[in-house]
């Protein structure tokens, strides 16, 4: 029992501590690829600390939704992160929910963010909300199907069971093609859901293109800090699902000090590698026009659908 508590506490600490580093790493990679030195990878920590010290300004036309949203988004994203095995394959919180709970905890945060974007009544907020709603509705089915394709191989929708069985390579039906297709589909969804480049550009506040930033435009001070931190945690949750559900090898399959240490190191390395990949993708590709986003997410949906179909045809 104490062991489980310790694992949960360490997991919360990692979920809170790692996101600014990941964001900083992506920025650093982009800067290096543009032949700039770039800010330190620790810069986002300083940014967050500064924002927490600033006094927030809240428009007098807003309702309680505006001030409640940062807390709802932050806590729902953190709760979603607790459902994902991070460095121990048997996550102590696995009784609390499966992959469907994960998807809807993230959707809850998105929903309140959309409401908050509309709440302040500014034109940009509403525009960002409407765009976010389009992206979220298109990304969700692809996300569900791609995780289901993996869930089928393990015969369970519980993330811990999936990760545990896949890491030990026992009790699962392996077939590389559906696995790969689901991985690619999920990666596209992760880019779309976390507002990364082919769909949204986190580095710009250009009114014609922004999605996520447009919804946050009215926020300041600690509210903004919480929302930025939550966005970082959301990115980390998606990267963790990619790293651990699709390629869990290296994760600690039992709670012994040596295995846990290896699991933590492997996890940080895997997540950092994914952050590097995202940085490279952001440097290589231009942002898609908004009307092309459904094509990208449609392709991801088809890929995950095919992964499911292939699972049934190729296993025999």
């Amino acid at each position, binding site marked *: 029992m104490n062991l489980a508590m310790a694992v949960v506490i360490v997991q919360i600490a990692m979920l809170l501590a790692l996101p600014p580093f990941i964001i900083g790493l992506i920025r650093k990679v982009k800067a290096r690829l543009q032949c700039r030195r770039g800010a330190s990878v620790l810069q986002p920590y300083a940014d967050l600390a500064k924002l927490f010290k600033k006094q927030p300004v809240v428009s007098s036309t807003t309702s309680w939704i505006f001030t409640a949203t940062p807390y709802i988004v932050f806590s729902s994203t953190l709760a979603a992160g607790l459902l994902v095995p991070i460095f121990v394959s048997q996550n102590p919180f696995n009784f609390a929910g499966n992959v469907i709970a994960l998807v809807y905890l993230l959707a809850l945060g998105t929903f309140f963010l959309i409401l908050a974007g509309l709440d302040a009544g500014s034109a940009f907020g509403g525009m960002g909300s409407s765009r976010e709603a389009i992206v979220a509705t298109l990304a969700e089915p692809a996300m569900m199907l791609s995780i289901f394709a993996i869930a089928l191989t393990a015969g369970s929708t519980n993330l811990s069971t999936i990760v545990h069985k896949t890491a030990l390579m026992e009790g699962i039906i392996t*077939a590389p093609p559906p696995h790969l297709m689901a991985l690619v589909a999920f990666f596209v969804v992760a880019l779309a859901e976390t507002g990364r480049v082919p769909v949204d550009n986190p580095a710009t506040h250009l009114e014609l293109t922004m999605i996520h930033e447009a919804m946050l435009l009215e926020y300041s001070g600690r509210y903004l800090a919480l929302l930025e931190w939550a966005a970082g945690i959301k990115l980390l949750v998606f990267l963790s699902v990619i790293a651990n559900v699709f390629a869990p090898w290296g994760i600690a399959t039992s709670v012994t000090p040596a295995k846990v240490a290896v699991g933590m190191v492997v996890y940080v390395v895997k997540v950092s590698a994914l952050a590097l990949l995202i940085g490279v993708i952001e440097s290589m590709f231009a942002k898609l026009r908004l009307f092309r986003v459904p*094509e990208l997410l*449609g392709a991801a949906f088809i*890929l995950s659908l095919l992964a499911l*179909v292939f699972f049934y*045809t*190729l296993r025999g």
Partner: protein
Amino acid sequence: MSSMSPHAGSQLVDLCAVLLLLTCFAIVAQRRLSACVDLFALQSLFLAATAALVAFLTGIHHIYIAAALTILIKVFVIPRILKKVIERLNVSRELVMNVNIPAGLLICGALVIIAFFITQPIIPLGYLLTRDSLAIALAIVLIGFFTMIARKKAVTQMVGFLVMENGLFLGATAAAYGMPLIVELGVFFDVLVAGLIVGIYTHRLQDAFDSVDTSTLTVLKE
């Protein structure tokens, strides 16, 4: 025969065939004409890899020759002809289609499911190594056919035709470990001639209508 277990070999063949299918989807989703041609070349490369893999795993040598011809004709010669044609055109991307891209992708997904459904009863009767590829081959043929219907430009219609041909080749490899060599040679010659004819035909279309949109052919006049 190789030292690999038949299960691992069959999974490798499946993987190659799936890559072929994925390039099909990339072609359906691609608007740029030259990128379509590049994707077709990539698909042909995967096809050659599949054929070479089947040849290696079964020890049937004439499939190697077919794989080499695939690389020569479909990876180098035909894409070069099509690239030459595209260079001469005044458009680089296809903006108007008969079916838009998201709908096209969904239809292709449905086509794959149909192909899998149709081949389900006969798949258990096939050879162990390549039997799953038959469903994929049928899916590729259907998607190629769909591309020819959905697109308006002569070049992309040609790409659709070539994708169909790739599907048929994969089907022949999957169902019967390849056709007799003389038939393969004839097919390759036909495909090459078809490529040349479409090249000339596209030039004529461009000269006559100042566009390679084949729907202009419905308003022929004296």
